[in-house]
């Protein structure tokens, strides 16, 4: 019954847990700040949050602990990831400072502030404490509920209103008003014809049946890859996988075997020539 224990006192177990997870949390926080890629920051933040959730539990805030995991780590952080995806997981933004002296000021403030806070906590003599046990006697959730729906009911209602407003606000912000009618298929095709390029649909990616992944460029008859076949996004991110080389080597290997079987040597260079001419 560790929960009960945790509620009344701090066991060595909790101490151990604190020191281990605390380090993790701090590391997560640091990496949130210093990771180059937003995705990584997000993930490390999520990690920190989970650790915090555990701490909540350890502090006897069972409800919050769960909420922390569900809402924060589950919902909010995922929202972050979505946005990161929307905005595009571009190449990591450089941590090089543009504003003169900003970084040093930031660090100075940060360190100073931290030191001050710690000092403040330190000289606020908080030696003794009474556990949460009393409060949690008949269940943490019930206790919270009792408070929220009596003492803090107005605040609660207002936060409800706030949430709704926020949702609406988000929609309003992200909603884009369409000014002109969307073009129909027909109009689009006619446009393309008039423009006179790529009248047929773009070539599909993938080569034969061996690769049909979207990031593999289709090969021209001579085996060289065609950029057109890969979506622009992948091209921009430089995530196109070039398989032409191995395709050619496969080809060569195939013909090799064919020759061995047919004991043909004098005319072995012919297909190569052809391929070379073709490749010219």
């Amino acid at each position, binding site marked *: 019954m560790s929960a009960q224990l945790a509620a009344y006192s701090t066991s060595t177990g909790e101490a151990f847990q604190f020191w281990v997870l605390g380090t993790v949390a701090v590391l997560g926080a640091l990496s949130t700040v210093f990771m180059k890629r937003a995705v990584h920051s997000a993930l490390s933040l999520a990690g920190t949050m989970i650790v915090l959730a555990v701490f909540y539990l350890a502090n006897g805030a069972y409800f919050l602990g769960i909420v922390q995991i569900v809402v924060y780590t589950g919902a909010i952080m995922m929202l972050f990831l979505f946005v990161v995806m929307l905005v595009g997981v571009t190449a990591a933004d450089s941590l090089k400072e543009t*504003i003169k002296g*900003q970084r040093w*000021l*930031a660090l100075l*403030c*940060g360190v*100073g*502030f931290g030191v*001050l*806070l710690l*000092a*403040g906590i330190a*000289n606020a003599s908080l030696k003794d404490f009474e556990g949460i046990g009393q409060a949690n006697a008949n269940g943490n959730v019930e206790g919270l509920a009792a408070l929220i729906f009596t003492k803090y009911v107005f605040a609660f209602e207002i936060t409800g209103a706030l949430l709704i407003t926020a949702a609406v606000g988000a929609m309003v912000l992200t909603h884009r008003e369409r000014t002109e009618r969307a073009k129909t298929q027909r109009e689009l095709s006619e446009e393309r014809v008039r423009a006179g390029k790529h009248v047929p649909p773009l070539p599909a990616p993938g080569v034969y049946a061996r690769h049909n992944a979207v990031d593999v460029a289709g090969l021209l008859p001579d085996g060289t890859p065609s950029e057109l076949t890969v979506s622009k996004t992948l091209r921009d991110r430089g995530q196109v996988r070039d398989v032409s080389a191995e395709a050619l080597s496969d080809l060569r290997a195939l013909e090799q075997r064919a020759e061995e079987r047919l004991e043909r040597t004098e005319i072995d260079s012919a297909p190569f020539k052809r391929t070379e001419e073709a490749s010219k």
Partner: protein
Amino acid sequence: MENLIALLIAAPLLGAAVLLVGGRRLDAVGHWIGTLLAAASFVIAVVLFAGLLGRSGDDRTLIQHLFTWVPVESFQADVTFRLDQLSMTFVLLITGVGSLIHLYSVGYMEHDERRRRFFGYLNLFLAAMLLLVLADNYLLLYVGWEGVGLASYLLIGFWQHKPSAATAAKKAFLVNRVGDMGLSIAIMLMFTTFGTFAFGPVFGHVTDASQGKLTAIALMLLLAACGKSAQVPLQSWLGDAMEGPTPVSALIHAATMVTAGVYLVVRSGAIFNAAPDAQLVVTVVGAVTLLFGAIVGCAKDDIKKALAGSTMSQIGYMVLAAGLGPIGYVYAIMHLVTHGFFKAGLFLGAGSVMHGMNDEVDMRKFGGLRKYMPITYWTFGLGYLAIIGFPGLSGFFSKDKIIESAFAKGGTEGWILGAVTLIGAAVTAYYMTRVMLMTFFGEERWKHRATAGESVDGHAAPAEHAAHAEPHPHESPKTMTIPMIVLAFGSVFAGALFTWGSSFLHWLEPVTGHQEGDSPLSTWTITSATFVLMLIGVGAAYAQYGRRPVPAVAPRGSLVTRAARRDLLQDDFNHVVLVRGGEHLTRSLVYVDHTLVDGVVNGTAASVGGLSGRLRRLQNGYARSYAVSMFGGAALLVAATLLMRAV
């Protein structure tokens, strides 16, 4: 009867209001309205005069209290009129001569399209002048004092299209303002000394006040008098004032307004009597001006300016007499009245001459006019005889009295003053004879000058109808000649009338007080000396202008002559010292105001702007740097709280 006093002023004031506000629809009758109201005022004056004569000498003072004007604690100024013998005399002179000159102006201004306005101004002047002499306290007197200044400003500058006229008007007002400053300071001094500035209380308590304050008050009053009566050193405006229409010169700058200074001194006699030093200054000022004006009068070729010089010198006589104290007050006023008659007559004559000569004023372009305008000639001649003090005429009586009183002052002062007055008499005879001869005798220098019709200093009436060809001298219309004749009568008989049983003396004595001075010389000696000197003056003038022809262009003349032509360089002095200096001062001050006073402020503004420009760099728009500052701020707050808890 007291209630009539206000009417004296009300009549012309009403005229002024009606004429000035009335607008063009009154153009046709305006001048008659003005004249009638002036005459009405004169009639009221006569009625009052009769009333006063009916009373015994001591209670001939009427007081009319209209309303309280400015009541502030102890500062109580009332609108109260005081009609006693002194002011009665002035009222009669003002309204009488004023009415005559109104009448004269009807003819003189006939061709001026702004005649209505002219009469409005004349009425305004009458009202102000009457207020001046009727006021019962100095503040009210001050109102009239500046009122006549305004009227003279408007009338001198009546032909505003002439820059010379506008400038002259401005000059007159400014110089007068200097005098007014003296008057206002005098009033303040009275208020601090006596706690009031009403005639009665002030004169009643003169003896209690300290000598120094009284002298100060008296000198300030004298300054005012100098400004108004064109006495040295504030005389410079009078000559230029001749830019105004001639009736104005006659009424304001000969008969009435310029004598206000004398009135002030005589009215304040009580104060002056108590301040002998001030009196001495008064006599000196009078004596200097007497000679100054006379000399200037000798040199001027402009007939009006010559007369203006004579006016100055005659007023010099009056001021001198007034400075003599109780010995002279009566004679100062007497000369004032007679002078009012003959000088007004002379000016009207001059105006009549100009009227007949296309508004020519240069006497060198006159000559032999007696045939062409006989009435003018005779009236002018009588006035001439009066002013040079020809025995039997009014000037003779009044001036001799003054000369006697001057000697009667006693001591060396008496001798000096007497001598000055005697010399003055001779010079007066000289320059008046000169005017007479150059205008009415000699050959007719105005003939055969088809080109020279253009008047010397632009005395061209606005509605210039006369062609600038050879003038055709002609007698002026009745409206102009009648007043001249009346005034001529005045200048002949007034003196005799006044001295007859020394009626004038008895009339004024209750107000001004009088004491017979004992002159070291007998009356006969003085009279004969005066007569001889007068003859010498006349003879000299005759020898110079009567025997040989007068050059049509003024000879260069001696240094003195040239100086005298330029008003003895007074104007040049003013110009160099006051005008130039003032211009430089104001310019430099404007510069200072722009650069220094304003510069300081703008400099501050600029520096603040620069500073903010630098601070602006902090606002680089990067959310993160804002965040840094915010975070740093938070850190500081934490630090602060910790510190607070630590201590």
